[in-house]
Each structure stands twice: as C-alpha cells, then as structure tokens.
C-alpha cells in the first residue's frame, strides 16, 4: 500500500520554524509507523531525526503525535491508520530537531515525586512479605515506561507546564499503594500542591494515549482521594 507520510520537520541549524514534508512510501502488510520512518531515513533522507530503540513498545523512546494522537511509532500499524499518515513531535515540549523533544523537564517532574521505595526498617533476612492482593493493588501503575505520551496529551499540562503531569502521578501511585513503602505522606504532600493532582480535569486524554493501557485517570483519582483522606 502506497502511503502519504507527512512529517513535521525542524532543523535548528537550518530552519526558522517547523514545516511539513511529505514522502510517498510503500508500506508492507504488518509495517508500523516506525518502519516507514526508517524507510525514509535510510533510503531517502538521512537527516530525518527521531528517537527509537527497542522497536516493540517497551523502551518508550518513540512516542510522537501520529494522526493527531500520542502513540509509540513502533506500536502503531500503518494498516490501522490508512493511506494518510501524519507524524509530529509530542505536543507541549520544546523541539530539539524533527521528532526529538527535550525530555529533561519531563524527567524532572518524575523525579520530584520521590519515585523510589522508602523503607528505613532493617532489611529482613529474606524477602519482605506481600500478599498477592497487596501486590495487585498497584500492579497497573508498575507498567509505566516513561514515554511521556500521557503528560503531553494533557490539556492541563499544555495550559500549565508546571503541572506535575499524569506520568509523575502514575509513578507516585505505584509507591503510595505499595504496602512496603513508608513515604506516602511525603508524596501526598508534594501532590497536594497547586501543581499536583488538582490540575487534573478528568479529560481522559492521558488514559487514551497510554501505550501500556494503564488506567491513568483512575490512578490520579485514587491519589486525589488519598490526598483528601489525609487532610481528614
């Protein structure tokens, strides 16, 4: 199938502003958008720039705006998009070049919620016990691959980039509801801030965008409820 592939291009060494380039590429039956990008880069225009690594949806490198939705280029089959495919960088982020955006602010927000287990009790000889039920409580949010598809799909984040964003809240959730963790209070304090959970307007864009199928809006609501309960 012959596909019209439109890509929003920007080279800071040559361009004053971004512009669309269109490529006509042949797509095989199971090809993904990443395959088309490679085809252009390797055969037509070596300057086309994007991040990618694992190419099967687990490393989170190649999140981008594909036909108007944030998705992983390696996980979207072209036959599900049709003959017109448009690709642009993640919205709301500073573009470095073509589809590559500055991820530093995103990782800073992630780091701000203490995304690590805190448990200062002496370590037991064997594993800490955790029932399957306790383990299941936070299972969904362990799936996050930090691709930024959710945060950069969020209108609240677009309007207010200081909003900590869905991804950071998901990673806070992963620890707040882990029975082994002792720092929930501190995380809830951080997320009770004006740039914390209250900026969520339950628009569900994050949940739609997540390539891992995490119920993000649900997770944010659970954290919001925990913030409220804490205030008692």
């Amino acid at each position, binding site marked *: 199938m012959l596909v019209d592939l439109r890509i929003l291009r920007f080279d800071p060494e040559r361009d004053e502003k971004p512009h669309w380039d269109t490529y006509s590429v042949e797509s095989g039956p199971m090809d993904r958008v990443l395959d088309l990008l490679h085809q252009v880069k390797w*055969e037509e225009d*070596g300057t086309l*720039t994007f991040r*990618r*690594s694992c190419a099967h949806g687990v490393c989170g490198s190649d999140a981008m705006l594909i036909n108007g939705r944030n998705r992983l280029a390696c996980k979207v089959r072209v036959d599900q998009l049709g003959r017109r495919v448009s690709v642009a960088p993640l919205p709301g982020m500073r573009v470095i070049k073509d589809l590559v955006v500055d991820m530093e602010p995103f990782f800073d927000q992630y780091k701000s919620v203490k995304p690590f287990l805190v448990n200062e009790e002496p370590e037991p000889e064997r*594993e800490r016990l955790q*029932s*399957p039920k306790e*383990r299941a409580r936070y299972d969904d949010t362990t799936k996050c691959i930090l691709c930024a598809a959710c945060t950069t799909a969020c209108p609240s984040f677009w309007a207010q980039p200081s909003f900590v964003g869905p991804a950071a809240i998901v990673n806070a959730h992963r620890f707040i509801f882990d029975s082994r963790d002792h720092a929930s209070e501190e995380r809830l304090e951080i997320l009770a801030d004006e740039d914390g959970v209250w900026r969520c307007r339950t628009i569900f864009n994050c949940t739609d965008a997540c390539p891992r199928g995490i119920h993000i809006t649900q997770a944010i609501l659970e954290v919001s409820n925990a913030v409220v309960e804490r205030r008692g």
Partner: protein
Amino acid sequence: MTVPERQVHEFPAVIVGAGGAGLWAALELAREGIDTAVLTKLYPTRSHTGAAQGGICAALGNHEEDHWEWHMFDTVKGGDYLVDQDAAEVLAREAIETVLELEHMGLPFNRTPDGKIDQRRFGGHTRNFGEAPVRRSCFAADRTGHMILQTLYQQCIKFGVRFFDEYHVVDLIIEGGETRGVVAYRIADGEMHVFRSPAVLLATGGFGRMFRITSNAHALTGDGPALAYRHGIPLEDMEFYQFHPTGIVGIGILLSEAARGEGGYLRNDAGERFMEKYAPKLMELGPRDVISRAMYLEVREGRGIGGGDYVHLDLTHLGRAVIEAKLPDITEFARVYQGIEPITQPVPVQPTAHYAMGGIPTDVMARVVIDEKNTALPGLYAAGECACVSVHGANRLGTNSLIDILVFGRRAGRDMARHVRRNGVPDVPADVAEPVRAELEALRTRPVGENPNHIRAELASVMMDECGVFRTGTSLVRAYNVVCDLKDRYRRAQVQDRGRVFNTDLLEARELGYLLDCAEATVMSAMARTESRGGHYREDYPQRDDTEWLQHSLAYRTEGRPEMRYKPVSITHFEPKPRTY
C-alpha cells in the same frame, strides 16, 4: 585540537551504559559515597534490560526444594561445559542474595499465596542435577526486566548517581597500561566531552543488530566490545551466539520462554509436539540451542507450517486466565505485531538472534583481562552482555542473563570502589579526544560515498544466512569475505546529515563500524572452531570435541585477519559429560 575545559570532567568512577549491570554498579559506588558518572547514549529507562520478560533465576526454593549447586550444574551443562565453573559458582550462590536485595529495593515480584516471591519453570533449570524441571525463575508478570530497570533507576535517583543521558561514548582512554577515562560525544550538540577517571565499567550490552532477524534493540551495536577490541583487548568466545526459539516471524520480537515455562507447546505442520524427538525429558523446556536447531530441522524437512520457515507456539490449552495473568505483554505483542489472538490461535514463531555469550573477557571481579593468563588491565571493568566472564559458556540458559548482569554489575561496583580508593583521577593528554573527533568529522563531512544503511543490511543478511544457527566451513568463508568487503566499503561510506544537533545519521554510521568489528571477530572465531558446542553448530563438525576444543577462544584485532589464541576453561565441580535432555 584540544577539548575546552568545560567539556573535561573528572570522576572517581565512570560507567558506560545504564542497563542492569551499569545501574547496579553505580548504586554500589553511590552508596559508598563515591561520585559516579553514568553515561548512556539513550535515557537509562530505554536500556534493553527493560525488554527482558520471563524472569530471573535464584534457588530460593519458595515452592519446592532447590539448591544453588543445582542451579550451578544446570548453568554448566546448559553452557555445554564451556562455562567457567568458578564464575558459575559465584553466579548461583550470589543469585539468592541479589534477588532478595532487589526485593528490598522495591521490585514488585509476583507473590505466592503466602506472600513470598513467586517462581516458575524455565528452560534447562532442573532439580537434582537434571532430574526434572524446577520452579526457579522469580518473576514480575512477563515484564521482569522492565521492573528491574525501573527499580534500579529509582534507587540510583535516591542515591544521587550523576547521569549523563544521551552521551555516546566513542573512545576509551588507555595510556601506559592503565585506564584513564573515556571520550563521549554529546548527542544534543555534537560536542566532545572527556571524562577522566581511574575506573571505567563497560556495560554497553550486546550486538544482536549484526543479524537480520533479532530480538535486540536498535541500540545494541556492540559499542563496548568494539572499542575494547580496537584498543588491543581480545574478544572471548565470539562464535557462541544464541538464537532464541520463539521470535515473531520476520521481525524477531521475542515471545518469552515463560510461554513454555507456563506450559506452552511447540508444534509442527502436522500438529506434532516435535520436541519429543529432540529432548524427550524436558520437551519444550529444553535449552534454547537445542530447540532452535530442532525448529530449523523441522522446517528443513518440510514440516514448517504450510511448508514455510516457521512453527507454531501453541498456548490455546492454557486458557484465558493464565495467559492474561502471567503472559500479558507477549499476548499483546502477538496481537499487535501479527494480528494473532494467542488465546484461541497458535502463534507463528521462528528463531531470532538474541544473546551474545561472548564478549570482553573478565575475571569474577568483572575486571577486564587481556590474555591467556587472565592478566587484568588496571581500572577497566566489563559486566553484563558485553562481557564474557564466562557464566554462559556455549549457550545461556533463560533467566541467567538478568542474574548475570546484576551479580557481576554488583561485583564490578564493589571492586571499582576498592580501586578508586587507591587511585586518584589520572592525567590525560590535552589532545586525547583528537583521533576520534577526526574520525567522526571525516565521516560527517565526506562529500561522496556509499549509503551506510546498505552496508548494514548486507551485513545483517550474511550473518543470518551464513553464520546463524547452522554453519559450515564454506558458509563461514563466504561470510568472512563479505565482512571484509563491507569493512572496506565502510571506509568510504557517506552520511547525509551534516549537522551538529542530534545527528543520529552520523551515530548510526559510527555504530555500524562497531557491528563490523564484532562480526569480524564472530566469523573468525566460528571458522577456527572445528567442533559443535552449544550455540555454535558446525554441520561439517557435528560433534563436541573436548580433546581439542574444551577452551575459550580469544580474537585479537590485527591489520589483517584477527589473531586467534585460546585459554583453558575453569573446571571445579563438574567434569564434562555428554549433554542430553
């Protein structure tokens, strides 16, 4: 030309690569209060450790009796007796404390009903020295590697490890017989950065991208091994490359061995569970080399599905509940990448290039050793897939890669801590980055030349076809000639992107040079070894030959053909025996 002062950094310890091995080493150093820099050409959470699915082995015995000695035996036998048994003992013993420490760091393992770490079966792991499968693989659904990577990165944040994300290491600094640091290219702006350090750990992962069908990430281009090789360090056991049996047809994405650990079957066109013929005792839980060869033989004899070059992985009898609870990710892979519903349909699979048993030779402290006498190169370390310690010998068992990267990453960190206490930050010549800067500039500005992507595609094809699951002297000579020709053409390759900002065209071309070096060592080592053992199968020499070949190969770079030398295998517990399953 000298690098500006603001681009020269000093660190007691530098780690190249942010997968499991690099991150655990960094954590050991950081906990000791040693300022540690981790350089990665990606972001840490993009590292390929995160793609590991099925589990991490340790003889915890949470379900049934198990002992580290059994794990050690399985590892040695799985590796067709080329495993260094002193290293396998370290692996199997320290696996237990390492997995428990991971749990203490917060790793969300699946749990048994009484709250312990859950364990499942995996290929080649047995009770009582080969009697029957044992539940040894500790897991977090089928995203164990993802959870390991996340957990270690989280802990590194907690302990203040310094990350240099998207810094591509392009040279090692080795002067006067000792390690003095690395040179890195900052991807964001193309500036060269020099990191002076007395201790450098290479933890750059594998080089599966030299093969056409591979489970490996695009980033896995053998950077660490190739840089070591260019500095006169040999590459060990490069002829041993693992092809995992269950890759998605055509694109090689992995469907975890956990699918068979949970009870999945392999079937040929007649619907037969053909492993009955090849490994009657362990069946689908035989080691990977045995199963991949069996699949090729079935296909060659016309029993591939519809006469094609693949077989079926059948999970349909497991039921929706087991598949969705324990194998959610690979189920999704089949749906997304093949349009197959594994709950009701068998999944087409074929072997995929997966794991390098060989690599940079090290001792059990992860120190790089450079000759047949295991002489260490002071300050240089290697751990993880880029290293060869050798715990995998001629064939790695499933789940042993995750435990290898952690056990030896941990040991590397601890030994580096000792080393940096005795050694200050070394001097380096002012123009130390000049040779590699000049190489990159030449590549970036060459006015005409061949598209390097065509060279990469030809390399991947010849390696798959002539140096894959089955090899012969003739096929290897063909592969060697092609690799030499490609190396020659590579010297005249031209990139299109002339920019300095985020020039991935340039870096992919640089990576191709690393792949060519790794391929040269692989093919040469395979040509020289006239026997079959583990993952190296020579149709013209189908038997294992312990009299001649119970030894590790070392390939040294020269101006012409690589020079081959050999060193003995450490045998402490288990004498080599015929390997049947």
